[in-house]
């Protein structure tokens, strides 16, 4: 039997080849830059929710922390100005620290109690970013942010193709990072906690510490995603750019892609963000051009239909593929094996209920 191809490799191969077809600039790059950033944040959430089974509804907060840490450390209105690469690393580190701080008192909570605490953390983060104006510039956003320099060569914002490959590279490193963890003692401990926290504890795995490591790792990855998000805009945007809706988008990415599956996260990001950045825009353009005059009728504007289409698409996707587009596979499993019973993605959640 022909071995199944590795979907992660396919993703990267296709992504690396794509720019050949699309010139040096265009909508394509904008969409894919978003896709890569959200794939990164999705990877972070995948560690927390997909691997370890902790439902996190506040992922945007870690993005925000990464973005603001990066901005404060690099923007020239502050004295730090550590530069792009150090800023990226440090923002990841600060993200981990934040994950640690919020995790320490709350990771003992089960399932949905943790979910609401993380959601609250998201709200608190927004409020703090808005209220501590002296430090974060409140709603003004911090800009401009530096461009990455590689050996004396600076990638300008307009150089979309270079940005594309830079993001792809960083995403690749992150995927490698996450995959290596997943396929090691650390990752096994996470998965075992998701599957059955008590049994895993009875095997000698300290649940709180393990959860904490997962939470901090996930937060760090998401924070790096947030830092890149800001770097791409050359601004943090306002704090509201990291609100609950963003957390929900990230959650949808990993569930639609396939919980606990790295390849799924990549595909989920491509589908969800792509739908947003390409399909919905195209649809609006398509119908918008036919719009005659300006009518006060709310139904006439295609923009007013976006929520509806997005919602319907979400329901349809989980209806058709409830286990996600690319469900996780077992290591070393060959095509000949019978598939595991389709309860994979419920494992995480069932945990919360039972524990």
């Amino acid at each position: 039997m022909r071995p199944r191809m590795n979907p992660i490799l396919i993703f990267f191969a296709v992504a690396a080849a794509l720019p050949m077809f699309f010139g040096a600039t265009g909508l394509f790059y904008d969409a894919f830059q978003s896709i890569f950033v959200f794939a990164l944040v999705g990877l972070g959430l995948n560690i927390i929710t997909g691997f370890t089974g902790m439902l996190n509804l506040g992922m945007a907060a870690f993005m925000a922390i990464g973005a603001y840490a990066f901005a404060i450390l690099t923007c020239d209105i502050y004295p730090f100005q550590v530069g792009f690469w150090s800023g990226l690393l440090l923002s990841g580190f600060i993200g981990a620290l934040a994950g640690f701080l919020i995790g320490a008192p709350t990771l003992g909570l089960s399932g949905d109690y943790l979910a609401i605490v993380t959601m609250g953390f998201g709200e608190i983060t927004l409020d703090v970013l808005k209220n501590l104006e002296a430090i974060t510039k409140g709603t003004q956003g911090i800009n401009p942010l530096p461009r990455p320099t590689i050996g004396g060569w600076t990638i300008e914002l307009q150089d979309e193709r270079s940005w594309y490959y830079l993001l792809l590279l960083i995403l690749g490193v992150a995927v490698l990072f996450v995959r290596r963890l997943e396929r090691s003692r650390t990752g096994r401990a996470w998965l075992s906690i998701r599957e059955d926290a008590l049994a895993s504890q009875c095997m000698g795995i300290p649940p709180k510490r393990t959860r904490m490591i997962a939470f901090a790792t996930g937060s760090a990855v998401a924070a790096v995603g947030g830092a890149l998000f800001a770097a791409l805009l050359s601004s943090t945007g306002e704090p509201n750019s990291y609100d609950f809706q963003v957390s929900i988008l990230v959650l949808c990415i990993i569930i639609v892609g396939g919980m606990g599956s790295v390849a799924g996260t990549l595909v989920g990001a491509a589908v969800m963000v792509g739908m947003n950045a390409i399909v919905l825009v195209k649809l609006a353009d398509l119908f918008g051009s036919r719009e005659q005059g300006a009518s006060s009728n709310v139904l006439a504007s295609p923009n007013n239909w976006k929520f509806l289409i997005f919602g319907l698409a979400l329901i349809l996707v989980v209806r058709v593929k409830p286990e996600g587009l690319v469900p996780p596979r077992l290591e070393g499993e060959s095509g000949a094996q019978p598939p595991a019973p389709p309860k994979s993605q419920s494992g995480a959640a069932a945990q919360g209920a039972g524990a």
Partner: protein
Amino acid sequence: MTTLSTIVAACVSLVIAASSSAQNGTIKIVSSLPRTGSANAQTGTIVNGIKMAIAEVGGKIDGYEIAYEDWDDASPQRGNWDPTVEAQNANKAVTDATIVGYIGTFNSGAAKISMPELNRAGLVMISPANTYSGLTKPGLGEANEPAIYRPSGKISYFRVVPTDDLQGAVAAEFVAASGAKRVFVLHDRELYGKGIAEVFERRAKELGMDVVAVEGIDTKAANYKSLAQKVKFSKSDAAFFGGTTQTNAGQVAKDLRSAGFAGMLVVPDGCCEEAFIQAAGAKNLEGNTFVTFGGLPPAQLTGRGAQFRDGYRKMYNADPEAYAVYGYECGRVLLDAIRRAATKDRAGVLQAVAQTKDFDGALGTWSFDANGDTTNRVMSINAVKDGKFVFVKRAGDTAVEGAGKVSAGGSVAPADAQAR
């Protein structure tokens, strides 16, 4: 396989995207405004105004076809302007060589994202609604503003709307003139609302009023009854709310009144729309509520402005909202510049826009100053009567520019303003 099919799907839509580009003899204008979610009500009127301006020239200038695209800088998840989308719009505009004018943005925060990009590309940007002072005026915002928005060193951003530093001051002067001694300042913690509230606060203090407190509200709260009680119990004579209809100004007004606060309530031009009256309930605004507005309300417009008002009624079968005229003005000033431009490309149009002088606009006769701001200082104060805005008085002709500047010490670091 799913991966592949996803990518293929993405590619197909991209090919569609790529195929819809330039034709010869066409000049393209785009606007980037939040068209998804709650701001759409206002931006719709702006778009109407732009379309009207284009219709007036017959869609053609010097044989060039004027194409207009109405871009959305909001996303459905956010229901509001989205920095990512705004950045994409800016990119899209920069890479499409037929685009010579970019009308937008609605939110000052969004402008911060697209301004440097467009500036680098030398693409002129005219905003109908950005009022944040720091975008153009040195010394009023961050230390690095507005230089960071002008990486090419040239000015390519213009706005037809007076800035917060003028409007907030006008509002404070109006309150002071009414004899109020104690004033309670509220704002929505957004760039626009907070900025204008800060200007109001400083000007109010300069005018010798007692600012009881400055509070940022939670714009998503169900009601502000507790806060309204606080205002009432503080024995303030007047309240100022820096915010917009979208950031719940209606509920603030309503709760203040239902809590029994009888003093004067002043709100800025973000509330100068029918939707505000609709949200707050006409009865609650009757009498002691005032709305400042940068310009004159449609009913007070004369000359060109009156023509605009009548034309709008005819074209859209509705009264123009206060913001429609800004859209119209943006469109007209841009088209006028295209007409005057020696070369119908970005550089030519940019130069022509910058040279706009004594423009006979719907908002009066005005020019762009060295910063790209309108020289139009005319403002109006409006009240609400029988569910309609009524003109109270004209103001602002005497407003001091830079009233928002911190007087003591000369430091412009925002920290001074915020260390309360």
